[in-house]
């Protein structure tokens, strides 16, 4: 039986063999692998790039105190970006499933229309959810726009849901029964995260403190963005990556406040707009900064 970490090793090896940089998870909280700079910023501009990484993805509202066998506060995505997307991208993807020992002549694989869209990032793409014997295992997207900018090259984004894939391969009805590695189950490794973050996100988080943190990060990001000068000779020094970290902090704080029930209807749209404004601002400045570097 392939353990959870075997599956990760296999996929990383597979994509490394196809020219991908293997990155480690980003060290700021994100809701999805797409939000990492390795995707969100790297898809912009004219430079080819290939990267794969596992990203623990936090969705405060999805936490279930470790009670629900299929729902997690923090799940793991294996994210692959192929920019530009190769002509045989689907063949390569199917090959990755076969590398994990899935005989696709004996399993039912379907590509069902599912166009991904993230309004807070000004990003969208065209693609599918990939179904394996009725289970959604991957989101497959041809990125079209990011930060409101049409992308020069069209990257393919593959997002594998690792817990689902592992439960499928190990024939487990609960993610907590997945074998992480010999002698350790998923529950051994992650149950505490699920329980404690659920308690924090739903009960314990101090709302005024979170708002204060949100505003601090927002202010710092806005301050930096205002200083970015597209005409500056040394603009490549400009710290856009740290600016983006503050946008990510805002996004995670927003999600936490939301799961805490702290955001009223009237506020909600406005707060989303605030996060979007920073994220899109960084993306646009980044695209500009890249252009200059290209020359």
């Amino acid at each position, binding site marked *: 039986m392939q353990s959870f970490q075997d599956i990760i090793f296999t996929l990383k090896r597979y994509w490394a063999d196809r020219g991908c940089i293997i990155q480690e998870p980003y060290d700021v909280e994100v809701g999805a692998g797409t939000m990492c700079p390795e995707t969100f910023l790297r898809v912009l501009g004219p430079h080819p790039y290939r990267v794969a990484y596992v990203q623990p993805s936090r969705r405060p509202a999805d936490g279930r105190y470790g009670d629900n066998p299929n729902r997690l506060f923090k799940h793991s995505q294996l994210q692959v970006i192929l920019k530009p997307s190769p002509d045989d991208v689907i063949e390569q993807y199917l090959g990755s499933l076969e590398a994990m020992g899935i005989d696709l002549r004996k399993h039912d694989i379907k590509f069902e229309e599912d166009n991904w869209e993230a309004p807070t990032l000004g990003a969208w793409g065209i693609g599918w959810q990939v179904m394996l014997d009725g289970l959604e295992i991957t989101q497959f997207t041809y990125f*079209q726009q990011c930060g409101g900018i049409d992308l020069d090259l069209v990257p393919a984004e593959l997002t594998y849901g690792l817990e689902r894939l592992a439960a499928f391969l190990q024939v487990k009805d609960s993610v907590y029964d997945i074998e992480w590695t010999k002698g350790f189950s998923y529950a051994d490794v992650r149950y505490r995260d699920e329980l404690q973050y659920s308690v924090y996100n739903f009960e314990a988080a101090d709302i005024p403190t979170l708002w204060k943190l949100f505003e601090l990060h927002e202010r710092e990001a806005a301050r930096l963005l205002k200083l970015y000068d597209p005409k500056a000779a040394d603009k490549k020094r400009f710290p856009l990556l740290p600016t983006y970290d503050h946008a990510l902090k805002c996004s995670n704080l927003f999600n936490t406040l939301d799961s805490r029930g702290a955001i009223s209807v009237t506020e909600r749209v406005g707060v989303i707009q605030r996060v979007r404004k920073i994220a899109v601002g960084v993306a646009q400045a980044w695209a500009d900064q890249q252009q200059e570097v290209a020359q």
Partner: protein
Amino acid sequence: MSLPFLLEIGTEEIPDWMIPGALENLRLLFEKLEIPHESIAMDATPRRLVLRAEGLPERQADSEERVVGPAKSAPAQAVAGFARKQGVKPEDLAVETTAKGEYYSFTRKVAGRASKDILAEALPSLILQIYFPKTMYWTAKGGPRFIRPIRWMVALLGEEIVPFEIAGVHSGALTSGHRRLGAREIAITTADYEQRLRDHYVILSAERRREKIRKELAGVRIKPDPALLETLVYITEYPTAITGSFDAQFLELPEEVLVTVMRHHQKYFSVEDARGKLAPQFVAVMNIPADPEGFVRRGNERVLRARFNDARFFWEADRKKTLAARKLDLAHVTFQAKLGTYLEKTGRVVELVKELGGDADAARAAELLKCDLTTELVKEFTELQGVVGGLYARADGEPEAVWQAVYDHYKPESMDDAIPRGRTGQLVSLADKLDTLRGCFRVGMVPSGSRDPFALRRAAQGVVRILVEGEISVPLLNLIGPDDALRAFFEDRVRFYFKDHCGFAYDEVNACMASGWSSLLDLKARLLRVQALRSTPDFEPLAASFKRIRNILDQAEFKGGVGFNQQLLEPGPEQDLYQEYRRIAGQPIEHVISQLRPKVDLFFDKVLVNAPDARVRQNRLALLHTLLAEFSPIADFSEIVTHS
């Protein structure tokens, strides 16, 4: 020589629901090329759009092109110049006589172009013109757009490749089989194409795929679901149905929830037992020919089990709080940014239901109407909103009229869907839809073209249907209020309903609506009368006369208000017509039409309306106006299109 033509556009998986439309579009684009052909056939799988035509000529027929040059009287120099331009000597020119005089002309023979050349030139742009609701770049920004990336193309005219290129893909004679059971490159001819695909696990014909699924379903008692069948036909290249089962304990959950999970989330057919009750089984359609080791069946069973477990988890979690206790939570759910929360909407709908004459049950249903929006189950299965509220209301012990009203209040969801059962459901559904329509129009969210994000057309259509089919006699205009745009919007919906849904002739609908459309029941009754009258022999001639009257009054700019003077009537047809009018006034048109018509005909035959004496003229106009007004409460008969 007559040649077969084959075009296959090989793509990545196209969304199933777009495929039939794209094929039809491709056919029309091809026919616009005006290349003669005997027959044309369209086929598709998720990965290929295919056009096959028979009987194309190798080349187009030769044609002649006639060029007219200078007049015969023109200087010789001009004539020589014209001849030179045509590549001939002046003595080879013909002279022809036209209405304007004699002119030199030359008839040039144009050889027909090879069909292959025409196709090679036309196909790239033709293919990229196929309409899809949403398209993408796949090469790079500014590159071609299509529904999904094009990965190969077959284009054969007879045995020859029609050469062209799109986005770096060159047309050829190689197709591609099933993603995992077929070869990636398969050499084909127009003759063996379909069989070669079949050998590589692709059933080209949607009809054959449909038949295969149907045949495999024959032994199982499934809930018929034509739309799901179409989805499955266009999401597979080699469909095979398999039956799986689930634990019967899940049957304790509401059937609506189970069916939604199976149908919408998993694309399964649900199965019934002999008494029509849901059975603990399902049918999935996979994209491979067999599942001898049961991998696919067991995988699907496991997914379904997880989904049902989730649903049960949500059902039980939601039941910890009654539906009524959720009302205040609606303050946290936005209806629309400019229109406030669902709590505010609920308040308005309750008031509106009372205005509509709703009783205590209706008011209660209105209170509970949107409470299910805060349940976990609706967050998970948004398509079940309303239904879930109804189920929880029933479980909470609400009266039948109340829970059914909540359950049904989104109905009718399409023209084929039924309206809510029961008066309570009809009233709350009306109030909910009217509130949405009024609110959206008030803040300027008016549908335009294909943009109708709040589905206001469907809501308005629902209002019309509930009023008519629920036989509710509230005047529609009282419900709409003073908004002109909303009135015009409803007028269109009323027209659409009676014309396209009920099948009344458009001119009958125009005629009856011209006499008012606020009371829809009255409008329907009048339409039925006019429809019945139309088959009587006197109707069309009388309608023609009424149109004439209308024209005369319009031309004379007759405003009415002129006192009618009986003394000015001329004996004979005019007097007769007046007497007839006096006799029939107030009677139903059905009873009088046969006597009235000859009098009207005779009047127009013998009497000059436009009399020289202005008083007589005005009097005649007043008579005609009175006659027209007599029947105007039913319809404006001058709107009827007559054949005379």
